[in-house]
């Protein structure tokens, strides 16, 4: 049976493809490699932190390691992750289209990611960059490491993100099937759409901030150099104007996955479609108004600190709307307990916990105590790992049969999920305590009394890493040896499940006729 996987053969047919599904699979490989790489750097850090003093890393190398970890995870996994893999594969199918609006731009986006990643990694590794992924001035502009080349690599990766964003926005606006109005779109589409808006509007500002660091570093332009009359805090403004909305690039697609999984596995339509759809746009918008909460102790004005603090709390409202709506969706549902749903339960606990600590640190007077401590590290890992990684893995499992035409082993998938969720809890809960007790982040050493919490954290991180490994191996094995999957193993009403499994090159055998909504579980099949 001809499908997108076997329609043509040979490496060139993949490397030069314009098929969004093949591009998605190539992104999946790139993103998984990045996840593993970032995880290796994390384990290096956690191993060093088993003892209070310096063990096998000196402080400078430790600093390089957390820079590697942050840069790789943020720019090569968290930001591209769900949009480039599942957005690429399923957005066109969910609007009933045979591909995205600009297929060649889609391929360009992939190569921009690859080229940017290579430049970035070479510069980081051989250039000894130790600034942290945040590249704060004046250290970044005066450090002797290869900062200029590294940020140039990030700049190119950023372009990949912008191109993807443009493509997705135009696709949703212009390629919807006949009779597919906005309010009949799957919620995953709303999430990807809101994410794409952020990608287009925020990423260029990051590009500019990094470009300025590069010219400061390479040619002494001194835009942020106090010795030449510059103000280093202005870098932080430009950097966080992107990097705060960036965290919503990371979480919104994950929330889109949640909506799909919750409805499918409770066999229920969402308790309120409109609330979830609109809250995605709400998060995207409010996310732009909050960047100064990363700068409470930087020396910026009291006015800005107050304004950003209050505005930062508002985003919690939209997240809460989603959490309550998802919970209500489960009610009176026909719940089937599978690995994706287990990931969802993990998400709910970890995301809510992480989100509430976000509201806590948005209080500038409290943040004075927590800023640059492990409290912050724990907060964002609860959201990024507890939120985005769990749903990335959930999406990998949920959509696996559609993408590869085979089923994975449910038992091993559950083992992996348990390892991820519980490993995570033991890895990062101690870090809230450490941060509150005053352990600073980005330090290779710490006072003796913090050791037992650090050891617990490292143990948890190891289990988390093993959980991810088990999940990935389970899926890779299934891709080659798993039993053949039916067209719609989960009984989902989503439009993508109407296509054959795996889909043909142009997604549907005949133009999609939309006769019902994507969550019409209350109606007979």
């Amino acid at each position, binding site marked *: 049976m001809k499908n997108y996987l076997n329609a043509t053969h040979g490496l060139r047919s993949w490397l030069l493809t314009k098929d969004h599904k093949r591009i998605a699979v190539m992104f999946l490989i790139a993103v998984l490699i990045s996840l593993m790489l970032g995880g290796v750097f994390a384990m290096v850090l956690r191993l060093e932190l088993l003892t209070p003093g310096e063990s096998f890393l000196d402080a400078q190398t430790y600093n390089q390691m957390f820079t590697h970890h942050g840069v790789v995870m943020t720019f090569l996994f968290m930001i591209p992750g769900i949009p480039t893999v599942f957005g690429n594969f399923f957005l066109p199918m969910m609007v009933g289209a045979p591909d995205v609006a600009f297929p060649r731009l889609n391929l360009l986006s992939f190569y921009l990611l690859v080229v940017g990643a290579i430049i970035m990694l070479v510069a980081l590794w051989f250039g000894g960059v130790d600034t942290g992924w945040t590249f704060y001035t004046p250290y970044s502009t005066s450090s002797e490491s290869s900062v200029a080349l590294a940020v140039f690599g990030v700049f190119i990766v950023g372009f990949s993100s912008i191109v993807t964003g443009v493509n997705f926005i135009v696709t949703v606006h212009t390629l919807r099937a006949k009779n597919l109005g906005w309010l009949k779109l799957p919620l995953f589409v709303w999430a990807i759409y809101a994410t794409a808006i952020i990608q287009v*509007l925020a990423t260029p500002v990051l590009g500019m901030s990094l470009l300025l660091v590069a010219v400061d570093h390479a040619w002494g332009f001194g835009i942020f150099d106090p010795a030449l009359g510059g103000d280093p805090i202005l870098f932080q403004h430009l950097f966080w104007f992107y990097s705060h909305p960036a965290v919503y690039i990371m979480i919104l697609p994950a929330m889109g996955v949640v909506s799909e999984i919750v409805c499918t596995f409770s066999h229920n339509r969402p308790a309120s479609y409109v609330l979830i759809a609109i809250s995605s746009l709400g998060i995207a918008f409010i996310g732009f108004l909050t960047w100064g909460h990363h700068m409470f102790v930087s020396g910026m004005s009291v006015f*800005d600190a107050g304004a950003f603090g209050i505005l930062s709390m508002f985003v919690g409202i939209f997240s809460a709307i989603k959490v309550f709506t998802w919970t209500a969706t489960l009610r009176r549902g026909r719940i089937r307990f599978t690995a994706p749903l287990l990931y969802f339960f993990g998400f709910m606990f970890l995301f809510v916990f992480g989100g509430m600590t976000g509201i806590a640190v948005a209080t500038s007077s409290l943040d004075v105590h927590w800023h640059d401590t492990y409290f912050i590290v724990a907060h964002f890992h609860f959201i990024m790992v507890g939120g985005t990684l769990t749903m990335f893995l959930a999406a990998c499992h949920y959509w696996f049969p559609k993408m590869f035409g085979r089923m994975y082993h449910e038992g091993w998938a559950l083992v992996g999920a348990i390892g991820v969720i519980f490993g995570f809890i033991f890895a990062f809960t101690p870090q809230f305590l450490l941060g509150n007790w005053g352990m600073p982040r980005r330090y290779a050493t710490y006072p003796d009394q913090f050791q037992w919490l650090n050891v617990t954290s490292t143990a948890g991180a190891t289990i988390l890493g093993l959980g991810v490994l088990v999940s990935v191996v389970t899926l890779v094995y299934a891709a080659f040896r798993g039993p053949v999957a039916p067209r719609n193993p989960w009984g989902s009403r989503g439009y993508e499940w109407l296509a054959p499994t795996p889909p043909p090159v142009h997604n549907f055998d005949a133009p999609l006729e939309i006769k019902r909504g994507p969550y019409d579980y209350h109606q007979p099949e």
Partner: protein
Amino acid sequence: MHEREADDDPRHVGSGLKYVAALVALLLLTILTFGLHFVHLGVAGPVVALVIAGTKVAIVALIFMELRESLAATRMVAIVTVAFVALLCFGIVGDIAWR
């Protein structure tokens, strides 16, 4: 669903007068700004110059870039973008001006 007649028959295309009118307006506004430069308006000087610049960009967008005939979605893109540029400037000014 799309902006113009599907059939771009030359007989249906309007006159090019609006482009000429836009050009004249832009040239006049440029001369005006240039002239005002020599009048000492104090603090209001930069404000006036930027307001005129904004007007000129609006003319370029609406007439030359045909935003007037474009769909609502396209106009939203333009408006939202300008709003976010203003947001970035305002957030930074709120810091620098009031430290």
